[in-house]
């Protein structure tokens, strides 16, 4: 059965998001032959991006333009894509699982009355693989209908385009959409990056598994062993108020890649992993031997940080002959 693949290109500030190219490799992994990119936006920026896509991938691009599509908004994307994507023939509509992607993907699926499978991270035996229960369970999915909307976890596929052949065509399609009831006001920076992640060689991060707010002290003392270190945290720890949101590492927080990353009491949900997986060395300390974090870690230690970090500090001061200072 011949199936067509539509990749919805996402962009921000006039630049195509790298996740769009990751999707191209995802589709090629599925053996997709009939591939079309669809990009939505306002002229003139969207035309340049459409040409870039066609050149870098050799794939045809549909470029839907409207002055109302200058910025992303869910209802606009749903309406335009619903009109563009014909599901009379089997097709997969592939969308990056970013904050915009998962915002409109289920809307589009429901509008087209086809299934939606989200946060795909692998393909095995022609089945889509996605995580459940924070990575503890792996689900296999197969769309229950010939057509489906798929969202793909950022970072799950390589994003580089190694294509050097002739470029694809760009079809410009002015779309007539009403202004819509959504008013877009723009963007707001809500995170200050002043906890020193950029300069840090070592980041010691706390997850919910550290047990209580008091144990943040242990994390700070461990970090203080290293001359250029910073304190990170999972979203759950920030939500609990144990550390401020500026410490947050993960999809909605900071992305870091230090020489050494020490994950303390972190289970390893994909939202966190994607913010730190490019760290050179990853040490994970967790009481649960099956925690997902151990699949990413270089060194795995099955211990409780409450007892283990004091042992490390003790051993360190014994070796160096210096008592370990309490604060950093």
């Amino acid at each position, binding site marked *: 059965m011949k199936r067509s693949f539509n990749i919805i290109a996402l962009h921000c500030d006039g630049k195509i998001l790298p996740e769009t190219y990751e999707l191209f490799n995802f589709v090629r992994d599925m053996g997709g032959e009939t591939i079309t990119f669809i990009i939505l936006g306002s002229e003139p920026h969207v035309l340049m991006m459409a040409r870039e896509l066609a050149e870098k991938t050799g794939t045809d691009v549909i470029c839907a333009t409207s002055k109302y599509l200058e910025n992303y908004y*869910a209802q606009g994307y749903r309406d335009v894509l619903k009109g563009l994507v014909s599901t009379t023939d089997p097709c997969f509509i592939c969308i990056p699982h970013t904050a915009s992607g998962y915002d409109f993907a289920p809307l589009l699926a*429901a509008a087209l009355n086809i299934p939606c499978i989200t946060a795909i991270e692998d393909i095995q035996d022609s089945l889509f693989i996605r995580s459940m*229960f*924070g990575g503890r*369970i792996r689900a296999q999915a*197969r769309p229950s*209908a010939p057509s489906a909307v798929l969202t793909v976890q950022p970072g799950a596929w390589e994003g580089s385009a190694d294509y050097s052949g002739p470029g694809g065509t760009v079809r410009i399609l002015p779309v007539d959409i009403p202004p819509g009831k*959504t008013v877009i006001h723009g963007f707001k*920076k809500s995170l200050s990056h002043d906890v020193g992640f950029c300069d840090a060689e070592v980041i010691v991060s706390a997850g919910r598994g550290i047990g209580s707010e008091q144990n943040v002290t242990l994390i700070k003392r461990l970090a203080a062993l290293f001359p250029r270190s910073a304190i990170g945290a999972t979203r759950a720890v920030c939500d609990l108020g144990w550390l401020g949101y500026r410490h947050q590492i993960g999809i909605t927080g900071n992305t870091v890649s230090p020489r050494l990353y020490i994950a303390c009491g972190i289970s390893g949900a994909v939202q966190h992993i994607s913010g730190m997986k490019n760290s050179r060395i990853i040490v994970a300390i967790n009481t649960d031997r099956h925690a997902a974090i*151990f699949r990413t870690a270089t060194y795995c230690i099955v211990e409780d940080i409450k007892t283990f970090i004091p042992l490390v500090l003790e051993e360190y001061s014994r070796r160096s002959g210096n008592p370990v200072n309490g604060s950093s």
Partner: protein
Amino acid sequence: MLAILAALLYLCCSQRLKGAFSTGMNILVCVKQVPDSADTISVSEDSSRIMYNDGTVFRLNRYDEFALEEALLVKECFPGSRVDAISVGPERVRQAVRKALETGADHGIHVRVESDEYVSPLTRASLIAGFARTRGYDLILTGIMAEDDMECQVGQILAEKLSFACATSVMFQEISGDEKTIYVEREIEGGVRECITLAMPALLTIQSGINTPRYPSLSNVMRARSQEIEVADPQPADSLSMERSIIGLGYPKDAGTGEFLEGTPSDKARELLGILHELSMI
């Protein structure tokens, strides 16, 4: 007299009591019950379902706790508002509805599903839509995702089925004085927020950290104890609504390439420091 006028004027202008003269909002919060810890679950032999054991403790999905709190905050701003809490699932999810009532919801609804199996987002949303369609809600809130299935879909599909405006990953919301629009900040990547205004009625999926969920008050706990929970029997609206695309469950195969340090805790501490020393980190 002047003082009363001034007080009324203050009430009208104040953020907290913006809807002083409104009849209030009709709010629905969709809550899910999830196992407290993944340690107590396993996959059935035929790979079709999650098995819970005697040690499995269930609780409210954390993201839904934030959604419930946000609903209660809206209710406080708009006197006369009513907060309904709904959950889809087997008998056990009544606990989750009860918890919502204890926390401050006015009315609880249990949409019955007989078996304790995976329910797809489309099915879940269809069942809720079947109930909500005739109830005239102004605002529907739910968590950005469920901690167990992690699909990020139910809210959006429900919005589509009810023709509500929709925003996900919401970190701030404010309903306009005329109650016709809602200003929303949604969290996107890299600590940036997208700011939009939606027409009401609207559905928001709430990101964690938007507020600090309250604990149940004693009076609400007492009230909830004897309060009846409305039972709704499923009325799937369309043919696809009982679909499921998840066909098998299992454990991650790839153990990773990491090295497990073995021995006593002290052995491990020594080995770790040895490794860090070799890497010239300390």
